[in-house]
């Protein structure tokens, strides 16, 4: 037998509640209790509002560039729902909904995009890392965080999110490879939204599925309808169980779509067809849940109207908190550099200058400089 089979595999695709409202009872029954389903819908709805509001804040000059999450709510939400609250959630920037479920205050996200590091000062009790702007780098941190838990003998795992574009980065490969070979319990979730800014998915991965990226590491892989909250929860549960009991990673491709521009600085009409967007609008993860809940008599227009009110209030308050925070001080970006500031850096902070004349302590008797600086800064 000179040509034998060295390796053989298959990847399953999970879909439970599809865009036409078909619900697979076998997999779906009991997966999400009704009360929870309502809460999940409410979370998606609230985050969609946040997205709108953030967009308008940017357009009116009250916030910098912002990446809309619209259409991708079910991915990170399914993960956050399935994870334990103490599992690390290591995200990119389209996972507002997962972070919201986790309890991260929404002003943290607003502050980040308002150009304020205080939005990243995540309280440790959320077990969430800040929004990651550089693509593909956070998966290694997730792997290290899960490794630290394993090292301590804790049952905590990590779940990390990234885009299809991110799977092209070498760091993605290294993170998956470390987790697989050193037995680190990480769930790798790729949000395949078919675009990386203007670059179409086939330039990131021309294989039939993104899910098969995980085969390279011998990881169990799944492809999931990422706009189906039931499917994302189902897949996550399987992966979490494996991570928790066997200490091993899983790779999940959640197929979804970015309904908005890449960010507020982008104009997607330059590079993608309206027809494609329209097709995906019909696959919106919220529509099908709402219909499903209506079918089950869990939801109606009145509830929706009440929810809208609650969401507006909640988002409004978050915006107010983000906008009313005290202005940062230039000393802030010095003081957080090291636990103990080197003297030279303290001098730069205190004088707000790098040129040496008048900066030297011996020449500091005249504090005119300092006063001038403080005035200018505020």
């Amino acid at each position: 037998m000179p040509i034998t089979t060295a390796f053989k595999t298959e990847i399953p695709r999970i879909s439970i509640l599809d865009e036409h409202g078909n619900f697979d009872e076998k997999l779906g029954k009991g997966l999400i209790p009704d009360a929870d389903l309502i809460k999940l819908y409410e979370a998606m709805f609230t985050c969609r509002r946040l997205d709108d509001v953030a967009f308008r804040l940017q357009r009116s000059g009250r916030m910098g560039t912002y990446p809309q999450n619209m259409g991708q709510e079910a991915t990170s939400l399914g993960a956050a729902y399935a994870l334990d609250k103490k599992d690390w959630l290591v995200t990119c920037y389209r996972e507002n909904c997962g972070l919201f479920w986790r309890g991260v205050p929404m002003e943290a996200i607003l502050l980040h995009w308002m150009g304020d590091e205080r939005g990243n000062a995540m309280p440790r009790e959320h077990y969430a890392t800040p929004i990651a702007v550089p693509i593909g780098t956070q998966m290694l941190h997730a792997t290290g965080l899960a490794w630290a838990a394993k090292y301590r003998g804790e049952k905590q795992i990590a779940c990390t999110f990234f885009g299809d574009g991110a799977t092209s980065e070498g760091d993605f490969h290294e993170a998956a490879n470390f987790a697989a070979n050193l037995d680190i319990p990480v769930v790798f979730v790729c949000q395949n939204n078919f675009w990386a800014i203007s670059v179409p998915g086939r330039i990131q991965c021309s294989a039939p599925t993104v899910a098969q990226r995980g085969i390279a590491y011998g990881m169990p892989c799944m492809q999931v309808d990422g706009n189906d909250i039931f499917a994302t929860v189902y897949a996550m549960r399987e992966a979490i169980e494996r991570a928790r009991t066997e200490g091993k990673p899983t790779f999940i491709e959640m197929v979804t779509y970015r309904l908005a521009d890449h960010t507020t600085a982008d104009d997607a009409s330059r590079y993608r067809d309206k027809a494609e967007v329209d097709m995906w609008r019909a696959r919106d993860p919220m529509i099908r849940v709402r219909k499903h809940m209506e079918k089950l008599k869990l939801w109606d227009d009145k509830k929706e109207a009440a929810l809208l009110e609650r969401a507006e209030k909640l988002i409004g308050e978050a915006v107010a908190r983000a906008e009313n925070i005290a202005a940062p001080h230039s000393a802030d970006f010095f003081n957080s550099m090291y636990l103990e500031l080197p003297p030279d850096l303290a001098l730069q902070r205190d004088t707000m200058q790098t040129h040496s004349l008048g900066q030297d302590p011996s020449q500091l008797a005249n504090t005119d400089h300092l006063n001038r600086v403080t005035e200018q800064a505020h």
Partner: protein
Amino acid sequence: MANLNMVQAINLALIQEMEKDPRVLLLGEDVGANGGVFRVTEGLQKRFGEKRVVDTPLAESGIIGTAIGLAMGGLRPVPEIQFDGFLGPAYDQICSHAARMRTRTRGAFPVPLTIRIPVGGGIHAPELHSDSPEAIYAHTPGLKVVMPSSPYDAKGLLIASIRDPDPVMFFEPKRIYRAFREEVPEDEYVLPIGKARTVCEGNELTIVSWGASVVQCMQAIEKSGKDIELIDLRTIYPFDIDAIEESVKKTGRCVVVHEAPLTCGFGAEISARIMERCFLHLEAPVQRVSGFDTIMPYYKLELDYMPDASRIGRAIDDIMAY
């Protein structure tokens, strides 16, 4: 002659080099249909086709590493790295390979490569979109490092870089991409790599700067009312120490201005060289006005970080009073 901003001038330079030399191709993230996130490559894919303007996977090391191969294979690739902060993943291919291939092979495999990167702060961008890493690459033997401060310079220096037989880091100060227009000749022209430009002449003080900071220096000079000579370095490596020497020997005083952090920034090298070459002519220690030795803060505070006319002005006052 056309009245162009820097984005347009670079776009024009790319068009002209691509028309002239079929070996020139562009590659990078979003450089194709989207024309780059700053629209620097706008219209080029339509004009030259997908073969010559290539959207690549999202992988900076891959972009530079394959560009090295393209160059070794006889082409003249012009890769774009989308933002300064994303040079990091490409650092190894740039510094351990592009910069070393000629020496490693004793000339058998030169790497004529021009890496275009928007750099610097001041546009309210997110994290890692506002850095000024020129000193890192100036400290790396085997590279040339260029940074224009005007549309005219950008065109002439970019053409020179593309034609250069060695790898060039072409830093584009994004803050002044569209800040002003100036007359840019329609014909191709070349500005020599390694030659500084005297922006204005003066006898009391020399200011040396590059990139977007040149604009801040001009503001500071105007406000100061002093007789100041401003040298725009144009290329960070090789740098025009002769021009600096000549000026400082005349003025006896020098301030260097850059956005990058102070410690081991390129201002340190210039300061050290001035001492070495003009020691007996100096009337005051060379002063550096630069970014602080901190991470460039998120945008709420970015203007506190970057040298501005008032900070430069203080240094001018202090050094003149010395």
